[in-house]
């Protein structure tokens, strides 16, 4: 059993999805989804434990040996991301009002759960696979299901947002596919480990250069790197808040993971930063994301879109950490992966609580809710503090490593800019706080959200504080992952 855990991790959600569709019973599918969520978490946790205790796990799917067969590889980084994704999945799936806010006719909830499970399967698959083309396949699985999920939003603009996402996502995915094609052409293999081996002697090949170009742009599109982020704000804003919570906490994170894999495992840091000067491109884009995203967030009138723009900025932090090409920088980036997943997941769930009671996420409609929904509002404030990067929250940990990396490499300006941009977070969080606490309520008889909603919200929000103080699991793991990646890459 434990031998096949890597396969189980993927098959569990992948097979549950059609079961959901087949069963067609709301409660049963719901319970199944929750069970799969927590099951995935258990499997991921075990995989991470195994990866930590020894060498990376190599699993040959169906017994076909690579390079012909598809291989699943789980090292520290993989296990780390698996845990993040499945944690978020488990918590979000447990969130009480999952289908609330989705435009589903009664009796069709099973489709929704199916899509969720498929999305999870795609995300886990992308992480776990050691085969480049397989990444594309899982990417499309998760993307297609997320288009569907976003399109489910009650908001009539939801399909439009989903459509935009679809166009951009497909372009990104296709670029990615093309990139893999070029790589295959240059190396003759699709197995990542083999690719890395063969690419070592192909640094001057133009095919490889072109492949790199397509791959980076394709991934950047899916990752929503500034200025390729245009699909993201509406996608998150129009989707049901729970979906936003799930997607914002997982989808971009996995894409970041794929980017990291590509840079450090396939191409190698020497090639990417030394030969291609990736940092030259990534740094301005990251800074752009940090400032444009935060500034746009300040002026938003819709809470979900505010958070979505904040995500754009946060992605900037992650890519900036990447661009430092140092242990601390990558630690910061990877730690922020986890940390941002927790905060954004928690924040979107808090918004989902608000929407559950008020029916809108427009700031004007949320006035004075601090009094009516104190627990939800407190969750939002705590998450907001984490976004700002107040010490004792996870946001601080990532910021710490990023600034440390900037100082280490002598880039004092970036250190200042990182800190400066986090101030913009103060501005947009403050705006929400003012609306929640210092405005007269519109309808004073709003009740607090039910426990089944509050509990998952507070699990994530509480985690932002707990992991802000106990960092072995986040920054510690991120650090050993970063060391492994950099050690392997150079």
């Amino acid at each position: 059993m434990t031998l096949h855990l890597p396969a189980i991790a993927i098959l569990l959600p992948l097979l549950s999805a059609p079961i959901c569709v087949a069963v067609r019973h709301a409660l049963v599918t719901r319970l199944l989804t929750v069970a799969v969520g927590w099951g995935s978490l258990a499997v991921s946790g075990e995989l991470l434990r195994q990866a930590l205790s020894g060498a990376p796990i190599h699993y040959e799917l169906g017994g076909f040996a690579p390079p012909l067969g598809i291989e699943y590889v789980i090292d520290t980084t993989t296990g780390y991301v698996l845990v993040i994704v499945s944690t978020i999945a488990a918590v979000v799936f447990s969130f009480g009002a999952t289908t609330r806010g989705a435009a589903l006719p009664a009796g069709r909830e099973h489709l929704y759960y199916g899509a969720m499970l498929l999305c999870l399967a795609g995300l886990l698959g992308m992480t776990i696979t050691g085969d480049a083309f397989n990444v594309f396949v899982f990417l499309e699985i998760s993307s297609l299901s997320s288009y569907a999920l976003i399109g489910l939003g009650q908001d009539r603009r939801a399909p439009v947002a989903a459509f935009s996402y679809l166009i951009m996502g497909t372009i990104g995915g296709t670029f990615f596919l093309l990139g893999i094609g070029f790589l295959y052409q240059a190396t003759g293999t699709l197995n990542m480990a083999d690719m890395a081996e063969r690419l070592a002697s192909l640094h001057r090949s133009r095919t490889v250069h072109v492949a790199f170009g397509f791959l980076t742009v394709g991934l950047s599109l899916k990752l929503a790197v500034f200025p390729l982020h245009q699909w993201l704000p509406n996608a998150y804003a129009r989707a049901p808040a729970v979906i936003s919570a799930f997607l914002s906490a997982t989808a971009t994170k996995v894409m970041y993971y794929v980017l990291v894999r590509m840079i450090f495992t396939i191409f190698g840091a020497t090639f990417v930063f030394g030969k291609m000067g990736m940092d030259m491109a990534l740094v301005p884009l990251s800074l752009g994301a940090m400032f444009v995203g935060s500034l746009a967030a300040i002026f938003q009138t819709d809470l979900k879109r505010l958070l979505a723009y904040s995500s754009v900025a946060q992605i900037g932090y992650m890519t900036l950490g990447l661009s430092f090409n140092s242990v601390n920088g990558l630690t910061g980036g990877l730690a922020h992966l986890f940390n941002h997943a927790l905060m954004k997941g928690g924040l979107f769930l808090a918004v989902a609580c608000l929407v559950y009671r008020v029916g809108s996420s427009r700031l004007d409609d949320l006035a004075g809710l601090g009094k009516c929904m104190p627990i939800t509002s407190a969750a939002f404030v705590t998450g907001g503090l984490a976004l700002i990067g107040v010490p004792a929250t996870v946001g601080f940990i990532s910021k710490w490593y990023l600034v440390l990396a900037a100082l280490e490499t002598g880039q004092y300006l970036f250190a200042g800019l990182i800190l400066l941009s986090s101030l913009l977070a103060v501005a947009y969080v403050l705006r929400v706080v003012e609306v929640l606490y210092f405005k007269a309520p519109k309808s004073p008889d709003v009740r607090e959200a039910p426990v089944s909603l509050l509990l998952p919200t507070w699990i994530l929000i509480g985690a932002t504080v707990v992991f802000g103080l106990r960092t072995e699991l986040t920054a510690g793991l991120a650090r050993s992952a970063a060391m492994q990646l950099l050690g392997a890459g150079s």
Partner: protein
Amino acid sequence: MSTFGLWHYWVVIVLMMIGLYTVIARDNLVKKVMGLNLFQVSVIMFYVSMGKVEGGTAPIIPEQASGPVVYSNPLPHVLMLTAIVVGIATTAMALSLVVRIRETYGTTEEDEIRKLDRAEHE
């Protein structure tokens, strides 16, 4: 090989450009989907042509195997089976979204949809 010797690449590039241009320049959502399809097809073409070995046969082991047989690389072709499925799924998804958009907005022109959104917003 001359530049024209790689004519299949040129086909790929032209197809791709047409597809991308359609996505960029057309406001009609259906046309965008069509552009996207073209774009995807170009990639499929690219893979298929990549796997083709000049003079190669289909990658089936002949019954009387006498010495090495030149055959096309089957792997890219296999991969494209998946890619085609993905393309179909994407198109289906896109079109179903367009249907829903059309139902609520009464139009499939992107600029008009944005205008309507903005009007509602204000």
